[in-house]
C-alpha cells in the first residue's frame, strides 16, 4: 500500500477552483476567514481580484452568494460544513434554496474526521440538513479525482449545489482511464450479487476494502459509490436491491437523514430489502486524531464487512 497516493478532498477543491478560474473569468469565490483551511486560498492566489473574504460571518456570506447569483455570475461560497450547512442553514434554505439560485456551497471539514477540533466542528448533520431543502443537489466525492470532477460539474450545473469535502487525506481510487463523472449517477465499483454496499465520501475506499475481504470469504459484494446523494440514483439502488436482496450503507455522517436514510426510503418504496446503516450513531464526536476517531466510531472496512454479513443473514 506504500504507493497509494493520499489527498484530502479539500485540497482538490482548492486546486479545482484555481484551475477553473481561467476558463470561467466571471466566477467568484467567497470564504468566511477559512481560506487557508478550506483551500480556497489556492483560488485566491490564482485570481485574487475574484476572491472575496466575508470575514467570520457565514450567514451574510450565503446571502451575498445568493445576490451574486441573481446577476448570473457563477459563485462558490466556502466554509466548514458546520457553519455552511449548520449555522447558515436558514439562509441557505430561504435565500438560495427557495429561489433556486445557482450557488455552489463548498463545505469542507465535514464529518468526524475533522479530528482534534472535536464535536463543535465535526459536522455529521450536513447531509441530513441539505437533503431537506427542495431542489438542493448534494455531492460527496470519494477522492481527489472525483472531487475535482465534482467542482467542475457543479460549476456547469444550474441550481443550488452543496459539495462536501473532507480534511483528512484519503486514497485516490478513481485513477482509472475511463473515469467519468456524471451528476446524479452512482458508480458500481465492484460487481456481486450477495449484498450491496452503498458508500459515499471517504467510506467508499473502505467499502472496496470490505468487498475485497468478503471476496476472500466467498461472499460477492457489490459496491456502489454514491457521489451524488441528491438527487439519488434511484434506478441503480433499486436494481441492486432486486439483484442482491440486502444493502449496507456507509457514510461519515449521522445515520439519521443521510445517505442511509435516502437509500432506505428508496428501497422501501419499490423493493423492500434489509438496509443496515453504518454511520455516526446519533452521538456527538470528540477530540482525537481523525484516523483513531474513524476506528472508534466504527467507520472501518471491517465493520462494513460485518454489517454485510449481518444483512445477508436478514435476507428472507
Amino acid at each position, binding site marked *: 500500500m506504500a504507493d497509494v497516493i493520499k489527498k484530502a478532498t479539500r485540497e482538490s477543491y482548492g486546486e479545482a477552483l484555481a484551475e477553473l478560474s481561467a476558463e470561467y473569468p*466571471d466566477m*467568484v469565490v467567497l470564504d468566511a476567514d477559512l481560506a487557508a483551511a478550506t483551500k480556497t486560498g489556492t483560488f485566491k492566489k490564482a485570481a485574487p*481580484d*475574484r476572491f*472575496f473574504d*466575508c*470575514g467570520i*460571518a457565514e*450567514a*451574510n*456570506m*450565503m*446571502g*451575498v*452568494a*445568493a*445576490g*451574486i*447569483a*441573481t*446577476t*448570473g*455570475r457563477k459563485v462558490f461560497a466556502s466554509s466548514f460544513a458546520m457553519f455552511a450547512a449548520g449555522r447558515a442553514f*436558514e*439562509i441557505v434554505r*430561504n*435565500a438560495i434554496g*427557495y*429561489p*433556486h439560485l445557482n450557488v455552489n456551497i463548498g463545505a469542507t471539514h465535514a464529518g468526524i474526521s475533522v479530528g482534534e477540533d472535536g464535536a463543535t466542528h465535526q459536522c455529521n448533520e450536513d447531509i441530513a440538513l441539505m437533503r431537506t431543502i427542495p431542489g438542493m443537489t448534494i455531492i460527496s466525492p470519494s477522492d481527489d479525482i472525483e472531487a475535482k470532477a465534482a467542482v467542475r460539474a457543479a460549476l456547469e450545473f444550474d441550481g443550488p449545489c452543496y459539495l462536501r469535502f473532507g480534511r483528512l487525506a484519503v486514497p485516490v481510487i478513481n485513477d482509472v482511464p475511463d473515469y467519468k463523472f456524471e451528476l446524479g449517477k452512482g458508480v458500481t465499483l465492484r460487481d456481486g450479487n450477495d449484498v450491496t454496499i452503498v458508500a459515499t465520501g471517504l467510506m467508499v475506499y473502505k467499502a472496496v476494502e470490505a468487498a475485497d475481504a468478503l471476496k476472500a470469504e466467498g461472499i460477492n459484494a457489490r459496491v456502489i459509490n454514491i457521489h451524488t446523494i441528491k438527487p439519488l440514483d434511484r434506478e441503480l439502488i433499486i436494481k441492486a436491491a432486486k439483484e442482491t436482496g440486502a444493502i449496507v450503507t456507509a457514510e461519515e455522517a449521522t445515520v439519521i437523514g443521510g445517505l442511509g436514510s435516502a437509500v432506505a426510503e428508496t428501497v422501501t418504496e419499490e423493493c423492500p430489502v434489509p438496509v443496515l446503516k453504518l454511520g455516526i450513531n446519533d452521538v456527538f464526536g470528540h477530540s482525537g486524531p481523525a484516523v483513531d476517531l474513524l476506528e472508534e466510531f466504527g467507520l472501518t472496512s471491517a465493520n462494513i464487512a460485518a454489517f454485510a454479513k449481518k444483512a445477508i443473514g436478514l435476507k428472507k
Partner: protein
Amino acid sequence: MDETLRKDLEKKACKVRMGVIEGVYNAKSGHPGGSLSICDILTYLYFARMHVDPKNPKMEDRDRLVLSKGHCAPALYSVLAQRGFFDPEELKKLRHIGAMLQGHPDMKHIPGVDMSSGSLGQGISAACGIALSGKISSSSYKVYCVLGDGEIEEGQVWEAAMFAAHYKLDNLVAVVDNNGLQIDGKITDVMSPMPIDKKFESFGWYVITVDAHDFDALERAFDEAEKISGKPVAIIQKSVKGKGVSFMENQVGWHGKAPNEEEYKSAMAELQKTYDSLNAE
C-alpha cells in the same frame, strides 16, 4: 422637485396605498401597517429614480430593489402593478392558493421582484451580493434595499453592514423604514436598535435622515446619496406606520392584521378622498 412630478407621485402613492388595502383585505391576512409606511419611498424609487423596464423585468443593467422587510410585499406588489409589471387585478388574489403573489416576495414567479425575501435580515446580504457583482463587472446599476427598523435587530444585518463598507459598495443604498413600531410594541421597548444613524455611521456608511412622506425631501436625499463615492449610503426614513389610513396610523395593532369589510370600506373611502383632493388641486 418639479411641482407636476410631485403631484403625480402623490397621486400614484395614493393608488399604491389603495392597492395595499385591496390586497391585504382580499388576502384576509398580511401586513398593512409597514406596507403603508413604505408606499411613498417605493413609489418615488420605481416612478422617479430607478432604471427599470416593466416590459423587460430581467434587463441586465436595470436598477435592483431588494425588499428586505419582505412582509411588506403588498406595497412592493402594488407599486410594481402600478408601474406596469403585471395586472393590478392580481392584488385581489394576494396570498390565495394558486396565485402569483405569494405572502412574501418570490423572484421566481413575480415580474419585477429582484430577490426573494421575507426572512428578516437576509435581503440586505443579497443586496450586497448584487452590488458587489455589479462592481466587479463595472456595471452602472444601483441597488436599493428597504429594511425595517425592527428588522435591524437581526445580527445578519450588521454582518452585511460591515461587508458593504469593507467592499466600498457605493452602488448600494439601504433605506431603513423607521416607523418606530414592531409586532410586540415600540422598537424602543422591544429591543432598541437606536441610535440607527450612529450605528450605520460607525459601520462606515454615509447616513442621511429624511421625512419618508415628503417627495421633495426624498429627492434631495437620493440626489445626495448619488454623490457619495467609496461607501454605501443608509437613508433613515422617519415614517408613520399605517400612513394614509388614519385609523391605522401609529397603531401597532395594524402591523399584521387585515381590515374587516367595514374597515376596508372606510380605508378605501379615505384614500379615495385623498386622491380626489389631490386631483382637484
